[in-house]
């Protein structure tokens, strides 16, 4: 897809602090799921279908969208838990979609995930202590990275330790005095005392031996983690089922933090919790971010939570990010019709929306068969109308509904009897089709040429060719929205707002005013 930005080998640890280089940079990312069974010839599920997004150090990006929009798949792809079909995810100067096993492990130490349902994501046969310790064991933590200072800088590192890389703080810093004795400093947050390692320095090597049991260091780490998430040592030997939902989610967070990641993907971390418990978990996440300098990708369907916690928001629909930008700006002035619809659907006075409720019709199309052009076009309340026709809003809605009906039918599993009829060219299911068509024709007096199109489409469908019917409707009544899906203005680079709606162009009215105007039109005509 896009050209990879210059790789920056050996990024300078000190300068990495507040650089304008994104921590994670997603370009043209696609993740498709293919059914590999012999019997099925289903097209792949296009769960993530071309996503561009930058995430900067220390910020929280809220990823919102409804179920099935691909937000969880996006999060999992970032962590290497799903294989990307195309595109890149740049982090620490490498593409994390294309890593060797060892590199992937390293990336997964840097990036953790908290799952929605703490009940299902924790193994009920392990104690809480074991659950939190598991990633430490799996990654053989601590690696004991050693930076050697002063004259001894060139000497190699031996024993239980490895030389520190360019990134991050080394676990141990060894200074060698003039007399050849070693001076050892242990970094903060590593539950190890300087006298628990034995450091010997000879002419060309620094040898580090751990004097305590590795497991003891890990248990110390687990105790620290439990404390940090608001649990305590006595919880160590308990099992998840002995905990409440909120406590289990704390365990999940402690586990995700075990390997000291910089980046956490939080997948609906509070959706299964009661609101009073949710508030405490959100506050905890806030605290942890401030203390540990974490970067969050916060995935949720709850727009109120996003408004509270996210610096920036990305709104996802059917595999694509349709709008993104600083949360405050997007909520105050949403640019994409889907964002308008989502915000207006939040019930109650706590809603950030002060306008009218926009109720979307229908459900999102199947990600196996996304519409061409804009993915939201089939439900869009602000869809651009073609210039060739001038119908009242109620007629447009009826025409849209009829077209969606054909599309849905084309995708539906067809009963064998119906399929047999189709093959024989016999008409199928006349009754419901004529009903649907009559609704359209009743909605307004269509001019004869438009009526002819509808009649032909119904005829196609009544002979079982719903796809042709939908195509015919699209041909006649479609617009730019059915052809084009504009790329994000910035290519997804940076923190600026993006809006993948054609209405961003100067010649069109904005999404919100269009939605509101049309709503009044249909209200006026009793539609």
């Amino acid at each position, binding site marked *: 897809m896009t050209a990879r930005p210059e790789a920056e080998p050996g990024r300078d640890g000190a300068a990495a602090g507040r650089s304008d280089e994104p921590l994670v940079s997603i370009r043209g990312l696609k993740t498709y799921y293919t059914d590999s069974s012999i019997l099925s010839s289903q097209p792949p599920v296009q769960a993530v279908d071309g996503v561009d997004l930058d995430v900067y150090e220390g910020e929280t990006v809220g990823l919102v969208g*409804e*179920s099935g929009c691909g937000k969880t798949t996006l999060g999992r792809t970032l962590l290497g838990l799903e294989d990307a079909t195309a595109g890149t995810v740049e982090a620490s100067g490498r593409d994390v979609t294309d890593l060797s096993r060892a590199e992937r492990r390293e990336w997964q130490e840097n990036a953790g995930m908290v799952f929605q349902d703490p009940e299902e994501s924790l193994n009920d046969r392990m104690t809480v202590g074991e659950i939190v310790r598991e990633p430490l064991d799996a990654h053989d933590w601590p690696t004991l990275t050693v930076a050697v200072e002063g004259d001894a800088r060139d000497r190699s590192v031996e024993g239980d330790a490895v030389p520190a890389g360019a990134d991050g703080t080394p676990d141990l810093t060894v200074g060698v005095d003039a007399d050849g004795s070693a001076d050892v400093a242990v970094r903060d947050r590593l539950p190890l005392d300087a006298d628990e390692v034995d450091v010997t320095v000879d002419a060309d090597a620094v040898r580090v031996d751990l004097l305590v049991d590795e497991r003891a260091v890990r248990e110390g780490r687990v105790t620290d983690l439990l404390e940090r998430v608001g649990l305590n040592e006595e919880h160590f030997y308990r099992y998840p089922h002995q905990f*409440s*939902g*909120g406590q289990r989610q704390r365990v999940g967070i402690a586990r995700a933090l075990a390997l000291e990641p910089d980046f956490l993907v939080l997948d609906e971390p509070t959706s299964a919790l*009661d*609101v*009073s*418990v*949710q*508030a*405490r978990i*959100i*506050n905890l996440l*806030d605290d942890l971010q401030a203390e540990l300098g974490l970067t969050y990708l916060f995935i949720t*369907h*709850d*727009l*109120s*939570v996003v*408004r*509270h*916690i996210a610096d920036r928001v990305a709104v996802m629909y059917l595999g694509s990010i349709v709008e993104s930008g600083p*949360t*405050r700006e997007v909520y105050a002035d949403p640019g994409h019709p889907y964002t308008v*619809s*989502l915000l207006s*659907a*939040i*019930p*109650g*006075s*706590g*809603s*950030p929306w002060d306008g009218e*409720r926009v*109720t*979307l019709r*229908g*459900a999102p199309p199947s990600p196996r068969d996304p519409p061409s052009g804009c993915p939201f076009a089939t439900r869009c309340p602000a869809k651009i109308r073609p210039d060739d026709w001038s119908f009242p809003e109620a007629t447009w809605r009826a025409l849209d*509904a009829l077209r*969606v*009906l054909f599309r*849905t*039918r084309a995708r*539906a*599993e067809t*009963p064998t009897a119906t399929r047999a009829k189709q093959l024989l060219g016999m008409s199928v*299911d006349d*009754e*419901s089709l004529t*009903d*649907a068509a009559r609704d359209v024709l009743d909605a307004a007096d269509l001019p004869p040429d438009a009526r002819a199109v509808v009649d032909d489409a119904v005829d196609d469908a009544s002979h079982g060719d719903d796809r042709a019917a939908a195509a015919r409707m699209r041909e006649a009544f479609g617009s730019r929205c059915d052809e084009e899906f504009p790329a994000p203005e910035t290519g997804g680079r940076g923190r600026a707002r993006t809006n993948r709606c054609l209405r961003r162009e100067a010649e069109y009215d904005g999404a919100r005013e269009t939605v509101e105007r049309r709503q009044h039109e249909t209200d006026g005509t009793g539609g």
Partner: protein
Amino acid sequence: MSRISDGRGADPTADSARDPDPVRDRETDGDPLLAVRDLRTVFRTERETIHAVDGVSFDIYEGETVGLVGESGSGKSVTARSILGLVDEPGSIDGGSIRFRGDDLTDGLWREHRGDISIVFQDPSGSLNPVYTVGNQIREALKIHQGLRGSAARERAVELLEAVGIPDAPRRVSEYPHQLSGGMQQRAVIAVALACDPDLLVCDEPTTALDVTIQAQILDLLADLQREEGLAILFITHDMGVIEEATDRVNVIYAGEVVERAPTAELFDAPAHPYTRALLESIPGRSGPGERLPTIEGEVPTPTEPATHCRFAPRCPHAAPDCERVHPEPVAVGSASADHTAACLLHDDEFDIEAGAAYGGGDAPDAAGADDAGGRE
């Protein structure tokens, strides 16, 4: 917050302001469609007795939507199942009455009123039988409750699917549940519920499993059905936003007890019970972005003992020694006409409990700004 004395207008004395009957009649003529009084549903196990529903009372009149809101474990779903007569072993209704059109259902009259009350559960896929078509399931209900068969039943099934906004109903009626999306499944469940031609629809978290745009569709649908059919709805949810959007009156339930009852608008303008207030404040979006969310410490207790005290006291920022030994009864608060009660000693003039100081301390700013009148009047 107006206090109880000025709240009742005519008679300012505390005694007369006390509410003798926990549920007053509304300012309407006629009897309630459903009157729940002092309902007690318990679950007895070898280890303990859980008082899941512990003295709940409320009314539902024809054509209105009454909300029952609370966190998980508060007893709201058990209340719903009790009304439908669906409490299974080891649970049982231990006391109180559930009068539907005057008949006490707890006298074993559920069969007589079968079909008058329908329920819609949270999970639509669990409510539909996967091996029967949607139409089959609607026709089954039509046969049992309305005696419709054959083509009459088939036509009615299509009508019902159309009524709940399922497009292409004549085709969908012969589809199986898995062929419908989640929102469409929930519409189908509502269609099955309507096939009984009920007077009361109990909706137990009907939109919780749905996305927000689909939730909006279902809420619109329920409002339309209510307008067209004059249905009464008992709406059970943990979502305060949905309560505000969908209900006329609301009962807040905590650990098996209704702690506050009010017309919906009034509850949101002037919540009186400390639990209601804390619950409202902890919702993200009601405080400013970036601010710390006010929280309620502790967990909802499982009521294993009869209530001899306020069950919210251990978590309550106002709790006083009296709260540990006196069981608070609902008392009238708010404006006289409002039918607004709170079961809290703060509002009970027999007790002298200061409010303001503790409340809003710590990390809970008193957003409601309502409780400025501490102490005895």
